[in-house]
């Protein structure tokens, strides 16, 4: 299926009321890629990151779980989408969203033998571009848990049986009754920038796992992680990582926002350290996303949420804030300048906070209430970029070429 976006849908936005000149698509600048429950948007910033041009909606009415720019060419986009009643698919654009093509073979589990109950991909949840040396390679994580790889830029996808069909992993993955209400997620697929065969991933209700042979074999990486009180941490299925990120400046360090705290690991150690214990008690260290600095492995940001009692998953006390550590988690500082001070019951999903690679680092997040916010100075001050969007599922950044 090819969909051409109408030029009438192109709109300009400005934070200070000035009219934006029409800029050629992909002509340089920070790009925000926003995936929502009802479509996708691209936001292209000017070099100062003060004026943003909205491009969208793309796929209005489609559930878009993740929209990612290929950093290897700076213009290929992949969108993980599902249209309500229709089955899941992946769309690809090589001209910055002007035209899209559907994957010939979207992520799908193999057909099982007669009489056996097979699995069905409900939706692709996570997209990760492959290693810089493997042009056209992508990874996808699905719900229910499944790992897939494409070697042709997202046109066709193959399941990685080493994970998907491993009996031990099938046991840890569990079934529909074991996952989140909208399905268990395979997420945080990470490719070590030094080695294309070195991979990490997270599974909601399933833990963090590592492969050193390109996904053929996997091993849990859960030592040090806590689980919900009363459950046995030795049972991998009880582990619930929300988001894992690798530090580009030190690929041996990873940060993790888990259901049970904020963690850091420094390889070759196999033990995570709960650095979130240093967060203020009244805020806690529960949340969905974690975002790392592109050049400083001691710096990471989180967006706390209320994980008490019935788990509202909203901003603690109705006062949204980010927190930053600049010393690897030893200390944390609150960042809420510009954000509402009360009655703002926000949720920021695990894929909905991102950083760019500029200096100072720009930070971006989207809320389930449809607001898009950014900071051009690493969180010291936040400003709203857009409102009235549908529920935001994911925010990513890229450099438009």
């Amino acid at each position: 299926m090819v969909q051409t976006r109408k030029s009438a849908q192109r709109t300009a936005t400005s934070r200070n009321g000035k009219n934006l000149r029409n800029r050629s698509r992909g002509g340089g600048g920070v790009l925000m890629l926003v995936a929502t429950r009802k479509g996708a948007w691209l936001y292209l910033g000017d070099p100062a990151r003060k004026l943003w041009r909205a491009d969208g909606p793309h796929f209005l009415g489609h559930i878009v779980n993740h929209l990612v720019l290929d950093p290897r060419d700076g213009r290929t986009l992949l969108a993980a989408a599902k249209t309500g009643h229709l089955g899941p698919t992946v769309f690809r654009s090589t001209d910055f969203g002007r035209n899209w093509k559907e994957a010939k073979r979207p992520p799908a589990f193999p057909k099982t033998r007669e009489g056996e109950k097979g699995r069905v991909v409900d939706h692709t949840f996570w997209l990760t571009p492959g290693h810089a040396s493997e042009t056209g390679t992508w990874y996808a994580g699905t719900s229910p848990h499944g790992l897939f790889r494409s070697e042709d830029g997202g046109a066709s996808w193959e399941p990685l049986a080493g994970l998907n069909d491993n009996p031990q992993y099938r046991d840890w993955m569990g079934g529909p009754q074991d996952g989140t209400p909208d399905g268990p997620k395979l997420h945080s697929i990470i490719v070590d920038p030094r080695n294309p065969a070195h991979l990490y991933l997270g599974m909601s209700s399933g833990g963090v796992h590592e492969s050193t042979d390109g996904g053929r074999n996997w091993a849990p990486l859960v030592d040090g992680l806590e689980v919900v009180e009363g459950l046995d941490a030795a049972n991998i299925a009880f582990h619930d990582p929300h988001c894992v990120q690798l530090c580009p400046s030190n690929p041996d360090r990873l940060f993790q926002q888990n259901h049970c705290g904020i963690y850091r690991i420094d390889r070759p150690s196999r033990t995570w350290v709960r650095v979130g214990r240093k967060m203020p008690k009244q805020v806690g260290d529960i949340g969905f996303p974690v975002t790392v600095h592109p050049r400083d492995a001691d710096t990471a940001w989180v967006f706390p949420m209320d994980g008490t009692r019935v788990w509202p998953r909203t901003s603690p006390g109705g006062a949204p804030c980010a927190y930053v550590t600049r010393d690897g988690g030893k200390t944390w500082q609150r960042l809420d300048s510009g954000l509402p001070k009360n009655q703002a019951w926000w949720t920021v999903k695990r894929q909905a906070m991102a950083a760019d690679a500029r200096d100072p680092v720009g930070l971006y997040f989207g809320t389930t209430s449809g607001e898009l916010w950014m900071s051009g100075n690493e969180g010291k001050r936040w400003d709203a970029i857009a409102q009235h969007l549908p529920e935001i599922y994911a925010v990513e950044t890229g450099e438009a070429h």
Partner: protein
Amino acid sequence: MKVIIPGPLRSYTREREVEAAGDTLAALLADLDRRYPGLRFRVIDEQDGMRPHMRFFVNGAQVFDASHALRPGDEVQIVQALSGG
């Protein structure tokens, strides 16, 4: 035979009514997929099951099994359930 296509699938067919052939519903869907690549996977999953919220009618009667036999002249309608938000 005539196949009536719901709105969300017309990005594949461009038309509300198309022609396809098959002696069973499964065969008809395979024929539709040959003519409009990718359409089948949006309504039938990888285990050949009808996706939730998709409905198939033959001559106005709903069918629940893709092995349902079809005859020349039958009218098939693909409908998505009215649900969601």
